[in-house]
């Protein structure tokens, strides 16, 4: 009996969540060739094809773009994460704290920061860094890294990220998609987006 009641309460909670998410957040189309600022920051990108910008933000200073839905191809902008903040919004500051970007975080440690965030935030049991190398991002010295992880849905995804620390703030773009098919299909679209990124 208890079981049933708590089950219904959960179902109602889901329903209200659903109503909320349809009302408040509108998705937007990002049209090919038109420069737009992302995540309310001073970063602009000029997409080489049409993208969808999702209305929901996973954290302060972030914005998510997708082609077929964020499970299939997810481009996330982290635009200006200030020291002392996590990459995405913490579900519970006390019970499930996330690793923070700090003043002393080095570029070479940014992959570890993303890894720690994924493991806690996405409950990703397996995460593997594939490569880390120096690269230019937003016209500054930055880091480019690739990784692979298996999410709760037991699907293995590939990811790549470009990051730079500019005036003490972290700027990063990540692209994540299922390893089979989807990653390779949109990899070049993401790279074009990275190349077009400018800091005003």
């Amino acid at each position: 009996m208890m079981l049933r009641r708590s089950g219904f309460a959960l179902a109602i909670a889901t329903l209200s969540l659903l109503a909320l998410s349809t009302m408040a957040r509108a998705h937007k189309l990002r049209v090919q060739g038109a420069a737009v600022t992302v995540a309310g920051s001073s970063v602009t990108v000029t997409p080489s094809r049409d993208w969808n910008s999702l209305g929901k933000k996973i954290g302060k200073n972030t914005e998510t773009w997708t082609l077929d839905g964020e499970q299939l191809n997810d481009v996330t902008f982290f635009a200006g994460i200030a020291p002392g903040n996590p990459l995405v919004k913490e579900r519970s500051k006390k019970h499930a704290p996330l690793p923070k970007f700090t003043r002393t975080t080095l570029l070479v440690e940014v992959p570890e920061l993303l890894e720690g965030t994924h493991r806690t935030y996405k409950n990703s049991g397996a995460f593997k860094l594939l490569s880390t190398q120096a690269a230019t991002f937003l016209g500054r010295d930055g880091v480019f890294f690739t990784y692979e992880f298996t999410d709760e849905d037991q699907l293995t995804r590939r990811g790549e990220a470009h990051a730079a620390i500019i005036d003490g703030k972290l700027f990063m773009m990540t692209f994540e998609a299922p390893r089979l098919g989807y990653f390779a299909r949109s990899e070049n679209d993401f790279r074009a987006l990275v190349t077009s990124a400018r800091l005003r």
Partner: protein
Amino acid sequence: MTLGLLLAQQAGAATAPVPPPYAGAYQPQGVDEIGWWREDDESERKLAASNLVIHDETLTGYVKHVLCDAIGEERCRSVRVYIMREPTFNASMSPNGTMRVLSGLLLRVHNEAELAAVLGHEFGHFERRHFLEGFKAQRGGTDVLAWAAVLASFAPTYHTRRAYGDLELSIYGNLFRYQRNQEREADRLGIGYLNESHLRPQAAALVWQNLMAEIEASARAKGLKKPDFNKIAFTASHPPEGERAAYLADLAVPEGAVRDDGAARYRAALAPWLPLFLDDQIKLNDFGASEYIIQSLATGGWTADLWFARAELYRTRGNQRDLANAADFYAKAIEIGPARPEAYRGLGLALMKTGQPTTGQKALRTYLALKPDASDAGMIRMMLPGKGTE
């Protein structure tokens, strides 16, 4: 306390039963059970192909062997063991004989006897077919799930669907949430197997004492007033650990105390996997629990792997005091040896961040010399002035 004692006495009055004669290969009976087994078979097929299962014949064979040691060869034949890479404390057994053992459990137990206590307990649920008794609740539960799935499919974002995913987890959590009397029965059976085996039955109580201490340590480090035992999947459905540790200690046959607990064999079997399991735990960002686990593993002697894990844990938290400690721990790992090349990397980074770039760069150079093809070699090279092309 008095309640705990009372319960312990009650449980103690009934001694652990000698395991009943094994009924042999059981086939599901009745439409409910047959249906459930069919779903369970399907779920096992998916599990076998899952990316989260650790496909290591040696490790899986070893865990199965420990289970067989506890419950006997004949019973053991009905079990298929799958080890999953998931850093939480849990193991479960489903009606058709699929046993899922999470890597977090392997990291937390110290010897064969402790592992056998947990696995024997899960087998107890299976042998008594406790699943069936909760079947009505299960059907109610899945009705809710079916409706929630329909609703969630309208949802515009992945996040809503993930909320559904969480719901799915919580309802399945309830499915395998046995009643407390069933838990006690499984406990008694579990310890009954251990009493009959060649392993030390006293280990069962230690598992719970350790788990309680870990949950408390985690809460302390997070600044919480009270540890929440219900947050942990395995403890949520089980009798309060304090009560449990007491009656388990009571049920263990006294003459078993001198038996072997298999700690050395366990350490040897886990050795190839320990660094990975520790790594998975540390990156969960649960400082208190990780520190407790490392300290607890170190009671058997500090090794380079343990010092390295502790250093990584402190460096990840990243306060200046943590970085100083981390540098110290990396140095200890290197001193004891054989340390992984990554110990030099961590040492170098920690030193550079605490204002000692010269010694830091020296350590980073050693890292590159030991592991020239490291995935981040290029980045590290950039941090070395003048030696960039080395």
